């Protein structure tokens, strides 16, 4: 056991490359980050940004093989996830790290009862009797807000609604008290009103158990209110990272800024022209040279297509109330924006 001051998760220069018929697809291309104990990190990006592959690679679900290369390191509590044998790695899943997937219908086995899903996980990792496992299962279902837990144990996944199923998936993930929860688009497949409930649930569970969480999502709104820090991904690379409040209040990367501006705001009048990002995300088998966002960037300069910008710390705190020492903010851009820097915190501006 390492000293509690070290971060729980240290990801360093992680690269996941899929070798396809069309060439090497660099889904994750040199991403580093850390997650402290009890901290929540949001990984935001559009489809093709590599955020989901990143989550799975961190989990060790994507390992080097014939068609995939994983390089870099993932240290979970000091242990290199990818250096472990298959069996040792499997023992991490549950007590150390657990995952909640996007689609609760496909992540539950349709022919197994809810109870079986839970007790199997419990008995595999915790070495307890059938009755104990059952009691714990009931308790877990109660914790995730499922009414009549004892009756639910006997039901099959298809007998539950989408939100209820996602709660079951969360209960399974929590079964062995993981220290890190990776939630990969946990609410995307759910209805709006249920999304809110699930995010509330995850938030309170994380707090109660002082568990760390990585919330992977394309929904900026969901990440904005639920995470301590956020990392914005584009085309397999990190473009910006920092404390959630700072990033949303004053985005410094043109992509983050444009992404925030492109979302319709509820308090804007109808028929407001949206600031769209022109073009489409790059083909990851043939990414553009230099900054990957350059072809779509509204403020690109001549040098943007030349060299790939590195992720560098920003020294100057730009939002009010953040002392420079705790200002952990990094941007990968040759020409970080400043236009929104002094906008009122609480919402993107610049229309």
């Amino acid at each position: 056991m390492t000293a509690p001051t070290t971060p729980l998760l240290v990801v360093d220069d992680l690269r996941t490359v899929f070798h396809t018929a069309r060439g090497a697809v660099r889904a994750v291309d040199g991403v580093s980050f850390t997650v402290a104990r009890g901290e929540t990190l949001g990984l935001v990006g559009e489809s093709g940004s590599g955020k989901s592959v990143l989550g799975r690679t961190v989990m060790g679900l994507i390992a080097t093989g014939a068609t995939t290369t994983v390089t870099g390191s993932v240290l979970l509590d000091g242990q290199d996830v990818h250096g472990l044998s298959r069996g040792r790695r499997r023992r991490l899943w549950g007590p150390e790290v657990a995952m909640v997937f996007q689609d609760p219908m496909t992540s539950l086995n349709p022919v197994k009862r809810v109870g079986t899903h839970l007790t199997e996980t419990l008995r595999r990792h915790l070495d307890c009797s059938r009755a104990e496992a059952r009691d714990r299962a009931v308790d877990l279902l109660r914790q995730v807000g499922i009414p009549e837990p004892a009756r639910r144990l006997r039901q099959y996944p298809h007998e539950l609604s989408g939100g209820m199923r996602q709660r079951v998936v969360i209960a399974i993930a929590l079964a062995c008290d993981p220290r890190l929860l990776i939630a990969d688009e946990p609410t995307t497949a759910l209805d709006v009103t249920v999304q809110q409930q699930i995010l509330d649930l995850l938030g309170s569970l994380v707090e109660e158990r002082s568990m760390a969480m990585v919330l992977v999502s394309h929904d900026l709104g969901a990440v904005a209110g639920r995470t301590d820090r956020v990392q914005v991904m584009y085309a397999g690379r990190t473009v910006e990272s920092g404390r959630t409040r700072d990033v949303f209040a004053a985005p410094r990367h043109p992509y983050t800024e444009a992404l925030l501006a492109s979302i319709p705001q509820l308090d804007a009048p109808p028929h407001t022209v949206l600031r769209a990002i022109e073009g489409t995300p790059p083909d990851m088998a043939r990414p553009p040279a230099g900054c990957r966002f350059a072809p779509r960037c509204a403020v690109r300069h001549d040098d943007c297509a030349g060299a790939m910008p590195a992720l560098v710390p920003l020294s100057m705190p730009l939002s009010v109330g953040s002392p420079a020492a705790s200002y952990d903010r990094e941007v990968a851009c040759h020409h970080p924006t400043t236009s929104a820097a002094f906008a009122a915190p609480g919402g993107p501006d610049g229309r």
Partner: protein
Amino acid sequence: MAGSGTAHLRHDQPRALTVDDLVVEFPVAGGTVHAVSNLHLDLLPGETLGILGESGCGKSSAGRAVMQLPPPTAGTVTLGDVELTGLKEKEMRRARARMQLVLQDPVSALNPRRKVKDLVVEGLEIWGWGERDQRGKDAFVDELLTAVGLDPEVVRERRPHELSGGQCQRVCIARSLALDPDVLICDEPVSSLDVSVQAQILNLLEQARERYRLSMVFIAHDVAVVKNISDRVMVMYLGKTCEVLPSDGLERTALHPYTRLLLDSVPRESDAERRGEPAKAVELPSPIDPPSGCRFRTRCPLATDRCAAEEPQLRELRPGQFVACHHVEA
């Protein structure tokens, strides 16, 4: 939300589309799904009506029933002054072509085996080109593609799988515009697209509406998106209407408890301050056996016995704002 009623209809004005007492039901194992029950709506020329609701509220079924795809179980649909229900197959197809549909998944809405240049003019292939010769046809394809922001040189010869989702949705919109329709029905046109592409398509729809003088029905689940594009918003729950209100300022003016719930569910930064017990999961009612009276009552904080016994009718609580609830007042 039981909400029935016709208070919100504007009989005194010329209307591009009128839907009266629309019912859509289909049999499934174990009963009948009441997808849409007694829906009334109208659409003025040049107006955009947003239909807001979650999955299973019947918004997509309603959109398709208006298109007569398939025809509704009951009710009438009047396009301009032509009543569609009851027309013969051929006449129906012709009348329906004045109304066009844009679907959620643009990639699967395009035949994978055909090229973009053939896809966009499919409607004209069906209904005739008028006096255009081959050169006129090619020019028309290019004009349409340019109008939806695609470079004809690049995409003309491509097949759908060679395009991105956003590009496919542009092709779908171009195809709908080719027939110069009066009414465009958009069924979740941006929900399968990336955030950055979503804005492009919303802007494009807005431009197209002005340029082609369209009336639009915009069906979606995202409050902010619906508010942005619509003039008037109709909120649906389990096949019934809850509230009809002007989109301007709806985040402040909405009264129906369900509309409020939808608004509260929009994630925002202030969620960080939300603390306390997260909501218990509730059993959502099934459209096979919807609750009596107001269909929203099982989830409603204001529900009383009256809500179970009596279905609320749409009442005009503020000018232009109609709410189907026994309890709220302006």
